[in-house]
């Protein structure tokens, strides 16, 4: 039997980056806020203690802080003609679990999308004509511009203490920064991270080629910092245990370092962990949310009534929760109608592995976001005319770690086991560099999310089904980028290089990236998205949905910076809603 709890002003589903920021900002105004989180509480002092945090076997191999398929999984297929099967071991992407979400285990690369990215459809057609748009695409402009989001990017960067070097302050190009970035009001809150020898080689080679390298913006921070919430961080020690790990050194921006210490002091805030929200409840006419239903660790079911429901789970699970709750019309690719699950997108990875002689790169002295990048081939910073594809990539030379169990580079042709392999690893460990291209993925009619017709979870609810493949546009783009990476790698002085092209069809097994976007897209037209420009549901005005599920398509960057900016942007929408409840945008 479902037991009903006393009403709250706000219920938040999921306590990661977006949930914790909204919880703090709303509780700070005196609202009664409860956050309901599927996973456990996690705290730097207790869970990421320096004595146990750098445990590669526990965290990287056994994936200790990640979601387990028994908690939730998806079915997957490459196209609608196939039958989707359940993912039984997370591989290509690894959703987080517990308080802090994926903000605990991320590498910390914190980008702003480029101004053109927000109006990519209009921009590409204006410059190249309709002909450049790929077949079957759903590419659409964002309902918000870079200029509108700029102050909110700034706010998130200040909360996270991001280290970097500005390339464009108020329209003035800054030497050593990213000259292609949108104008920013302020310099980064902390100076850029230190770089290694291979980044030095990359910087020189790229500059000689007429490209524009700059230190990658990083949430592993370079100096001590105290953010506007009073939360303090310590300088990164370049220990190389970022991605897949919680930071024991208070050096990586996360909800744990940047928000939770202030949030837990708010007297009107409460967190309920190990409780899974199963449904957003609606009024009989379906026009308003009345709260949520959740199941606690003992399997007991509770109803939590609330005036405002903020859906802040990982993007994929936001989509599923909306589908299970009947908020918004589910997307149907056959009729090309409906919105929930529409425009699922991902990220491409391609590049070049470069082998040098007589160098010592010391790959172990690294952080998740050290590295030098260039944006000459991102978005529309170059002429797409001759290439016939839409999109671009950020190109980076970086090491995130040189950890003993899983970092075993070898030259091409080295046996995969035995003494020759060992010798090969010993030989290659210090002299391998990687030049990688992280590319955009556009949205398409046949890349989408819906409820699986066959497979159900432990509670009897349908699993979500992912239908996704890299389309010809992305293949062309990523493979062109791999050649650019290879040219730079050669110019760096590599003796041997190996071009890494995009793996197709997309394969769910090897880890690629956890940059899953779309499915609850923000749009200027209710027919092409779930959310209006303030991340408010077009259909149920007291539901707001945060996260990368709102991206209409994905850009050539890591998503977290934009997720953070959208959260503060959405917060302003929530404040406006609280002043005058109702739809913030008339359809």
């Amino acid at each position: 039997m479902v037991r009903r709890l006393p009403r709250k002003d706000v219920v938040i589903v999921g306590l990661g980056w977006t949930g914790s920021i909204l919880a703090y900002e709303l509780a700070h105004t005196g609202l009664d806020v409860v956050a309901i989180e599927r996973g456990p509480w996690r705290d730097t002092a207790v869970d990421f203690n320096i004595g146990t945090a750098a445990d590669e076997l526990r965290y990287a191999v056994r994936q200790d802080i990640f979601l387990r398929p028994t908690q939730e999984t998806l079915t997957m297929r490459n196209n609608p003609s196939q039958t989707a099967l359940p993912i039984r071991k997370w591989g290509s992407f690894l959703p987080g679990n517990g308080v802090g979400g994926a903000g605990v285990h991320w590498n910390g690369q914190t980008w702003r999308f480029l101004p053109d990215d927000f109006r990519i459809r209009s921009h590409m057609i204006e410059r190249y004509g309709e002909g450049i748009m790929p077949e079957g695409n759903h590419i659409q402009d964002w309902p918000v511009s870079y200029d509108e989001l700029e102050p909110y990017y700034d706010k998130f960067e200040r909360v996270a203490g991001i280290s970097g070097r500005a390339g464009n302050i108020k329209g003035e190009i800054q030497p050593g920064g990213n000259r292609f970035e949108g104008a920013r009001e302020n310099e980064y809150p902390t100076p850029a991270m230190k770089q290694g020898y291979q980044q030095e080689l990359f910087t020189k080679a790229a500059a000689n080629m007429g490209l524009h390298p700059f230190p990658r913006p990083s949430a592993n921070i370079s100096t001590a910092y105290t953010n506007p919430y009073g939360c303090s961080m310590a300088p990164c020690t370049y220990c190389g245990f970022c991605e897949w790990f919680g930071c024991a050194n208070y050096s990586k921006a996360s909800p744990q370092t940047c928000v939770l210490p202030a949030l837990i002091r708010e007297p009107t805030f409460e967190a309920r962990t190990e409780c899974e929200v199963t449904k957003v409840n609606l009024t009989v006419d379906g026009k308003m949310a009345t709260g949520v239903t959740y199941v606690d660790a003992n399997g007991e079911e509770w109803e939590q009534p609330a005036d405002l429901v903020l859906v802040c789970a990982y993007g994929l699970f936001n989509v599923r929760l909306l589908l299970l709750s009947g908020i918004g019309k589910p997307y149907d690719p056959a009729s090309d109608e409906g919105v929930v699950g529409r425009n699922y997108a991902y990220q491409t990875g391609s590049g070049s592995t470069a082998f040098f002689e007589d160098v010592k790169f010391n790959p172990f002295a690294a952080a998740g976001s050290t590295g030098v990048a260039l944006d000459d081939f991102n978005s529309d910073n170059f002429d797409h005319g001759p290439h016939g594809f839409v999109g671009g990539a950020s190109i980076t030379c970086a090491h995130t770690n040189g950890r003993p169990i899983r970092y075993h580079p070898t030259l091409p042709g080295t046996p995969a086991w035995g003494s020759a392999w060992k010798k090969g690893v010993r030989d290659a460990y210090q002299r391998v560099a990687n030049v990688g291209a992280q590319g955009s993925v556009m949205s398409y009619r046949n890349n989408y999310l819906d409820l699986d017709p066959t497979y159900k979870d432990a509670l009897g609810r349908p699993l979500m089904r992912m239908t996704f493949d890299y389309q010809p546009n992305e293949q062309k783009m990523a493979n062109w980028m791999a050649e650019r990476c290879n040219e730079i790698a050669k110019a760096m002085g590599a003796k041997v290089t190996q071009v890494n092209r995009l793996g197709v069809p997309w394969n769910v097994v090897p880890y690629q990236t956890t940059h899953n976007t779309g499915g609850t897209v923000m749009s200027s037209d209710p027919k092409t998205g779930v959310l209006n420009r303030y991340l408010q549901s077009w259909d149920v005005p007291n539901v707001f949905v945060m996260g990368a599920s709102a991206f209409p398509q994905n850009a050539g960057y890591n998503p977290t910076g934009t997720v953070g900016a959208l959260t503060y942007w959405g917060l302003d929408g929530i404040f406006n809603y609280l002043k005058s409840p109702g739809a913030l945008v008339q359809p």
Partner: protein
Amino acid sequence: MRWLRHLILLLPLLVVGGARAEPDNYVDIVRGKALATVGDCVACHTTSGGQPFAGGLALQTPFGAIVTPNITPDATTGIGSWSADDFARAMHEGRRPGGTYLYPAFPYPYYTRVTRKDLDAIYAYLRTLPPVENRVNRNTLPFPFNIRLSMIGWNMLFFTPGEFKADPKRSDEFNRGAYLVEGLGHCGACHTPFNSFGASQNDKYLQGNRIDNWTAPNITNDMQAGLGKWSVDNVVQYLKTGQTRFSLASGPMKDVIENSTSKMPDTDLKAIAAYLKERGAAGSPAPAPLPASDPRMQMGEAIFVDTCSACHMRSGAGVEHMFPKLAGNVITTQNDPASLIRIIITGGRATATDSFPTSPSMPSLGYRLNDSQIAAVVTYVRNSWGNAAAPVSAETVKDLRARVAGAGD
């Protein structure tokens, strides 16, 4: 019959009502709450996870455990039947309403300095608390300490009753600070060494003491181990935020700052600081530092570089707001190195305040450093970067390790 039901509902209110504060006492109640915060009453009169002020916490004394009473206005298990005079007598004389003697684990030798007006305000505040029924066992001490009449002799020897007398030769600020430190703040209860009868040694007032296997440091104006190198502003900042550029509070002082001093007005904190800085210095002079060539220093340095320097920095400079500076930090040069040893063994967390909520942690390293390694690294920290203090032996570490076994934070 409706009126009857109302009457029945009213009855308990009428009974309790007499013991409750009058509504026009508002000013006194607010003042009383602030004073109860200065006294940090809640710290001893609350168990971990228990109802505030409902008592039940076992205070470990050299004579056995004393369980703190319930001071909520519950008529049977709390102090609901006490009058303002009863309350003042307890605070001023260490006697219960019936005349029974209280033990000085309840720091009445300090509270006796508090003015009657302030006690009445605290009393008024305590009356506003929700009454909690919580019966605690008040007789846990073993023979012969369970004989409360023995306190007559103790009081004759060690107890000087009487309200605070301002020193007309000193500033109002100094006298205010003295009133707070010597009275409600009862700072000396932790920061002054005890004699073998558990009484504060007046000739070593505020010169430091070991409390719960932590060092409550010297808080006279001494240069070596006290506040000599701290400005008045440093002291205020420490009490308000839990940290200065040199130091982050942890151990029992974390609770004092979180519950008490961080909530006090700046003017009172400044008065406390002025008093502590101006009342004089006392302590042992600094010895000559051990030479870097000393084998203990060499071993300690090697451990420090491997285990400590990532956070505390090779230079001992630490990281502001996060990891304490060790160079020039007086916690490192106390006569008693207990805090340094203990925090390495058990780890700990720094104070969280509204100003600095992070509460960074020191990991427990007791599982991977043995007694002689801890002795060496503590000796190294005590004698590097300008610090100078007596070396620490492995036996001292062994002894403390046994006392804090299982006490990891």
